[in-house]
Protein backbone atom coordinates (compact mmCIF):
# COMPACT_ATOMS: atom_id res chain seq x y z
CA UNK A 1 0.00 0.00 0.00
CA UNK A 2 1.08 3.58 -0.60
CA UNK A 3 2.57 5.72 2.12
CA UNK A 4 -0.37 7.29 4.02
CA UNK A 5 1.54 10.60 4.33
CA UNK A 6 1.75 10.89 0.56
CA UNK A 7 -1.66 12.59 0.29
CA UNK A 8 -0.67 15.12 -2.37
CA UNK A 9 -0.21 12.52 -5.08
CA UNK A 10 -2.94 10.23 -3.72
CA UNK A 11 -6.14 12.18 -2.98
CA UNK A 12 -8.05 8.90 -2.52
CA UNK A 13 -8.36 7.45 0.97
CA UNK A 14 -6.00 4.53 1.48
CA UNK A 15 -5.99 1.60 1.57
CA UNK A 16 -7.60 1.08 -1.75
CA UNK A 17 -8.96 -2.39 -2.33
CA UNK A 18 -8.73 -2.32 -5.40
CA UNK A 19 -10.32 -0.31 -8.17
CA UNK A 20 -13.53 1.55 -8.97
CA UNK A 21 -14.93 4.01 -11.47
CA UNK A 22 -17.81 6.51 -11.55
CA UNK A 23 -20.37 3.77 -12.45
CA UNK A 24 -19.48 1.95 -9.20
CA UNK A 25 -17.90 -0.82 -11.25
CA UNK A 26 -15.49 -2.45 -8.81
CA UNK A 27 -12.59 -4.85 -8.76
CA UNK A 28 -12.14 -6.39 -5.32
CA UNK A 29 -9.44 -8.69 -4.00
CA UNK A 30 -9.79 -11.35 -1.28
CA UNK A 31 -13.58 -11.44 -1.60
CA UNK A 32 -16.17 -13.13 0.60
CA UNK A 33 -19.73 -13.08 -0.74
CA UNK A 34 -22.56 -13.85 1.69
CA UNK A 35 -25.85 -14.90 0.08
CA UNK A 36 -28.95 -14.76 2.34
CA UNK A 37 -31.57 -17.33 1.35
CA UNK A 38 -34.95 -17.06 3.07
CA UNK A 39 -36.90 -20.33 3.15
CA UNK A 40 -40.38 -21.03 4.44
CA UNK A 41 -40.57 -24.21 6.52
CA UNK A 42 -43.61 -26.45 7.28
CA UNK A 43 -44.98 -24.09 9.96
CA UNK A 44 -44.73 -21.22 7.47
CA UNK A 45 -41.91 -19.67 9.46
CA UNK A 46 -39.10 -18.03 7.59
CA UNK A 47 -35.65 -19.41 8.19
CA UNK A 48 -32.60 -17.63 6.87
CA UNK A 49 -29.79 -19.72 5.43
CA UNK A 50 -26.49 -18.12 4.46
CA UNK A 51 -24.08 -19.33 1.83
CA UNK A 52 -20.56 -17.93 1.79
CA UNK A 53 -18.49 -17.88 -1.39
CA UNK A 54 -14.79 -16.98 -1.57
CA UNK A 55 -13.07 -15.44 -4.57
CA UNK A 56 -9.52 -14.17 -4.95
CA UNK A 57 -10.33 -11.43 -7.50
CA UNK A 58 -13.78 -10.24 -8.52
CA UNK A 59 -15.18 -7.65 -10.93
CA UNK A 60 -18.59 -6.30 -9.83
CA UNK A 61 -20.71 -4.46 -12.40
CA UNK A 62 -21.79 -1.10 -10.98
CA UNK A 63 -25.50 -1.34 -11.83
CA UNK A 64 -25.96 -4.11 -9.21
CA UNK A 65 -24.22 -2.10 -6.49
CA UNK A 66 -26.58 -0.70 -3.83
CA UNK A 67 -24.18 0.66 -1.21
CA UNK A 68 -20.49 0.67 -0.39
CA UNK A 69 -19.47 0.73 3.25
CA UNK A 70 -15.74 1.00 3.89
CA UNK A 71 -14.55 -1.06 6.86
CA UNK A 72 -12.85 0.95 9.62
CA UNK A 73 -9.10 0.29 9.60
CA UNK A 74 -8.36 -2.75 11.75
Amino acid at each position, binding site marked *: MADPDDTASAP*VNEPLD*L*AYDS*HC*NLVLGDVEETVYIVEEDDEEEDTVRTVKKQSEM*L*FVRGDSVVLISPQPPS
Partner: protein
Amino acid sequence: MNRFFTPFFKTLVDHEVTVELKNDISIRGTLKSVDQYLNIKLDDISVVEEIRYPHLSSVKNVFIRGSVVRYVHLPGAAVDTALLEDATRREAAQASAKAKQG
Protein backbone atom coordinates in the same frame (compact mmCIF):
# COMPACT_ATOMS: atom_id res chain seq x y z
CA MET B 1 -17.12 5.44 -22.70
CA ASN B 2 -15.52 3.02 -20.29
CA ARG B 3 -11.95 4.28 -20.36
CA PHE B 4 -11.13 2.49 -17.18
CA PHE B 5 -12.34 -1.11 -17.16
CA THR B 6 -12.25 -1.84 -20.89
CA PRO B 7 -8.43 -1.59 -21.09
CA PHE B 8 -8.22 -3.57 -17.86
CA PHE B 9 -10.27 -6.43 -19.30
CA LYS B 10 -8.23 -6.32 -22.51
CA THR B 11 -5.15 -7.26 -20.43
CA LEU B 12 -7.02 -10.42 -19.38
CA VAL B 13 -7.77 -11.67 -22.92
CA ASP B 14 -6.95 -15.39 -23.34
CA HIS B 15 -7.32 -16.01 -19.60
CA GLU B 16 -10.01 -18.24 -18.06
CA VAL B 17 -12.77 -16.24 -16.38
CA THR B 18 -16.15 -17.07 -14.88
CA VAL B 19 -18.96 -14.66 -15.72
CA GLU B 20 -21.94 -14.69 -13.34
CA LEU B 21 -25.07 -13.29 -14.98
CA LYS B 22 -27.97 -11.48 -13.31
CA ASN B 23 -30.14 -14.60 -13.90
CA ASP B 24 -27.71 -16.58 -11.63
CA ILE B 25 -26.15 -18.60 -14.46
CA SER B 26 -22.34 -18.78 -14.29
CA ILE B 27 -20.42 -19.34 -17.50
CA ARG B 28 -16.74 -20.29 -17.49
CA GLY B 29 -14.64 -19.76 -20.59
CA THR B 30 -11.65 -18.12 -22.23
CA LEU B 31 -12.01 -14.35 -22.50
CA LYS B 32 -11.76 -13.42 -26.17
CA SER B 33 -12.78 -9.78 -26.34
CA VAL B 34 -14.34 -6.90 -24.44
CA ASP B 35 -15.77 -3.65 -25.81
CA GLN B 36 -16.66 -0.21 -24.45
CA TYR B 37 -19.99 -1.46 -23.00
CA LEU B 38 -18.16 -4.33 -21.26
CA ASN B 39 -19.89 -6.78 -23.61
CA ILE B 40 -17.87 -10.00 -23.35
CA LYS B 41 -16.96 -12.72 -25.87
CA LEU B 42 -16.07 -16.12 -24.37
CA ASP B 43 -14.69 -19.25 -26.13
CA ASP B 44 -14.81 -22.93 -25.06
CA ILE B 45 -17.53 -22.25 -22.52
CA SER B 46 -19.01 -24.48 -19.86
CA VAL B 47 -21.94 -23.68 -17.57
CA VAL B 48 -20.95 -24.05 -13.93
CA GLU B 49 -24.20 -25.73 -12.76
CA GLU B 50 -24.88 -27.65 -15.96
CA ILE B 51 -27.63 -29.86 -14.44
CA ARG B 52 -29.68 -26.84 -13.42
CA TYR B 53 -29.01 -24.89 -16.61
CA PRO B 54 -28.79 -27.35 -19.53
CA HIS B 55 -29.73 -24.74 -22.17
CA LEU B 56 -26.16 -23.97 -23.18
CA SER B 57 -24.64 -27.47 -23.08
CA SER B 58 -24.10 -27.55 -26.86
CA VAL B 59 -22.85 -23.98 -27.17
CA LYS B 60 -19.10 -23.42 -27.72
CA ASN B 61 -18.74 -19.66 -27.68
CA VAL B 62 -20.94 -16.79 -26.54
CA PHE B 63 -21.31 -13.04 -26.76
CA ILE B 64 -22.65 -11.70 -23.47
CA ARG B 65 -24.37 -8.33 -23.34
CA GLY B 66 -22.55 -6.25 -20.74
CA SER B 67 -25.73 -5.11 -19.00
CA VAL B 68 -26.65 -8.66 -17.87
CA VAL B 69 -23.31 -9.28 -16.12
CA ARG B 70 -23.32 -9.33 -12.33
CA TYR B 71 -19.78 -10.54 -11.56
CA VAL B 72 -16.66 -11.57 -13.41
CA HIS B 73 -14.44 -13.90 -11.38
CA LEU B 74 -10.85 -13.20 -12.39
CA PRO B 75 -7.62 -15.19 -12.07
CA GLY B 76 -5.85 -13.35 -9.23
CA ALA B 77 -2.38 -14.05 -10.59
CA ALA B 78 -3.19 -12.36 -13.92
CA VAL B 79 -4.28 -9.07 -12.37
CA ASP B 80 -1.68 -6.32 -11.89
CA THR B 81 -3.06 -4.84 -8.67
CA ALA B 82 -0.54 -1.98 -8.43
CA LEU B 83 -1.44 -0.81 -11.94
CA LEU B 84 -5.16 -0.97 -11.14
CA GLU B 85 -4.79 1.04 -7.95
CA ASP B 86 -2.75 3.71 -9.74
CA ALA B 87 -5.35 3.93 -12.48
CA THR B 88 -8.09 4.32 -9.85
CA ARG B 89 -6.23 7.20 -8.17
CA ARG B 90 -5.87 8.97 -11.52
CA GLU B 91 -9.52 8.39 -12.42
CA ALA B 92 -10.72 9.62 -9.01
CA ALA B 93 -8.51 12.72 -9.22
CA GLN B 94 -9.91 13.53 -12.68
CA ALA B 95 -13.48 12.99 -11.51
CA SER B 96 -13.06 15.34 -8.54
CA ALA B 97 -11.39 17.97 -10.75
CA LYS B 98 -14.39 17.76 -13.11
CA ALA B 99 -16.81 18.06 -10.19
CA LYS B 100 -15.09 21.26 -9.03
CA GLN B 101 -15.28 22.80 -12.52
CA GLY B 102 -18.95 21.94 -13.00
